């Protein structure tokens, strides 16, 4: 890919917008189409594009394996952690109303936002991890 200057330039130009769009899809999921799963895949797509154009080795410098594993686990922990928090606050598991006793609707907002963030983090990490697993096989 070293000689494809146009691809390299366009990729560099696009990457921040793809990542930004991922975050938009993530946090605007309450109001429009979107949510954690889609956002995670879009975020991972940016990293995968970077890997395709600038070699997987460089992509692994940006997001190393270790980080992928940590985020994979953190996402689930965030999701389950919200559930535990609702139990500790006196509700059932994942009963977001318990997050804000004065304004249950705000509690629902906060709960779904955090849970979707957990989904987004884990999905992004897993999709990147799958890409690395395939890319490693091709390299070796």
């Amino acid at each position, binding site marked *: 890919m070293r000689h494809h200057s146009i691809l390299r330039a366009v990729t560099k130009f696009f990457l921040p917008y793809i990542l930004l769009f991922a975050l938009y899809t993530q946090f605007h999921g309450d109001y429009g189409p979107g949510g954690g799963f889609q956002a995670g895949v879009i975020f991972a797509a940016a990293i995968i594009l970077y890997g395709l154009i600038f070699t997987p080795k460089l992509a692994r410098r940006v997001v190393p394996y270790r980080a992928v*594993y*940590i985020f*994979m*686990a*953190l996402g*689930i*922990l965030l999701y*389950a952690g919200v*559930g*535990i928090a609702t*139990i500790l606050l006196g*509700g*059932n*598991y*994942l*009963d*977001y*109303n*318990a997050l804000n006793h004065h304004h249950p609707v705000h509690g629902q907002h906060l709960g779904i936002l955090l849970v979707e963030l957990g989904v987004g983090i884990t999905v992004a990490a897993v999709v990147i991890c799958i890409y690395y697993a395939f890319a490693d096989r091709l390299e070796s």
Partner: protein
Amino acid sequence: MIAEHPVIQVLIPLLGAPLCVLAARGVFAYWVALACSLASLFVATRLLTSVMATGPIVYELGGWAAPWGIEYRIGPLNSFVLLLVALLGALVMLAAKKSVDSEIPRERRHFFYAAMMLCQTGLLGITITGDAFNVFVFLEIAALSSYILIAMGHQRRALYASYQYLIMGTIGSTFILISIGLLYQMTGTLNMADLAARLPAVGDTRTVLISFAFFMVGVSLKMALFPLHMWLPNAYTYAPSAVSAFLAATATKVAVYVMIRFLFSIYGPAFAFEKIDVSQILGALALVGIVLMSAAAIFQTNVKRLLAYSSVAQIGYIVLGISFANVNGLTGGIVHLFNHGLMKGGLFLTVAAVVYRVGSSDLNAFRGLGRSMPITMFLFVLGGLGMIGVPLTVGFISKWYLILAAIETGHWLAVALVLLSSLLAVIYVWRVVEFAYFQPRDRSSDPVGEAPLSMLVPTAILVLATIVFGVSTEWTVGVARAAAVFLLGGHS
């Protein structure tokens, strides 16, 4: 706190999995997994005692009431299965450390324990939930993690075995999903109790019939009912030994539980056994499976594969009990579900100990082990007696109830075939005994010592449990009978 126990039961291993990944290298992942398994066993015990004392427990996830939200509903049957899964999870995990250290490369161990935790999450979740679609979700969690676990076997053929299981398992879960989808189409609900209430009104439609057909084929694939068992022998043979022990004792049993639950508390006995009469085909397949697979076990040269074929035969016993659809038959089936879990878990753990010391589960590797690993082999013989169904072992209790039910319903052929298969079991257990006690060890091979205590103790607990519950049957049979009565009358 008991009110939150249902969700905590599933949450403990679910949290354990990411913690194992975070723990990364080192032994920390093992201790996380062990702690989670033990905590999960504690919760399962409390749930069972609470259900037996005060009746079913219902838990609404997210605070959404039943037909709309997902509910966990724990009755006598699934608290019994929960205990089996949690007990085997804890005991296998206690025994697993040395075996896993020798079979799994260091850089993959924390992933191995994470997958073990996810597999427990899936199996516990399938068992605990009262929502049909939730069953499918947990089914996939359990299945995907077991493909990973099997693929981690140290021979390359483990990959092929895992792939074979992946194909068959995916067909199985897809069929179950199609069936649930068709049920949803007809009733507009996914909650099991709600489904049971709404299905009779549309029970005559072809959609419901087809959903039943898809479900039966899908779940039969999952529980390896003969002739849909082709994935099982390879999977159990090439998986890491600790995984073989855990999956053989729990995975197919949980699938059997799903069948019981759908047959009796969703479709209902009136639909499944009177309108369609599924008992004919289930009973026939079970009997053919019992005899053919016990016979196939005799010809195996690998002890893990021998035990795997015997597992398929034992699934036949459980299904035979269910096919009678009366209290004694169902009691026998359910109690055998538990008892066989104990026996097979114990037997596979003794094989894990042999693999740890000798490095192979080939029959030839068992030569002379009666002398060099006396305790391990003694435990194997005790477990083997259970497989045969010798009085004072749990195997006898299950067969007793099965034969009672067969006589009650006048199935004399079934009585004869169950007795015949016990004789076949004598032969396949004897083959191992012969190699272990009556054949000398090769002089050229290295001397082997007794298995380490960390493996012997959990194995001994399981094997001794098969004797204890064989002598004092009140508890196991009591819970199983309560479950059977609940399924046949109390519900629907």
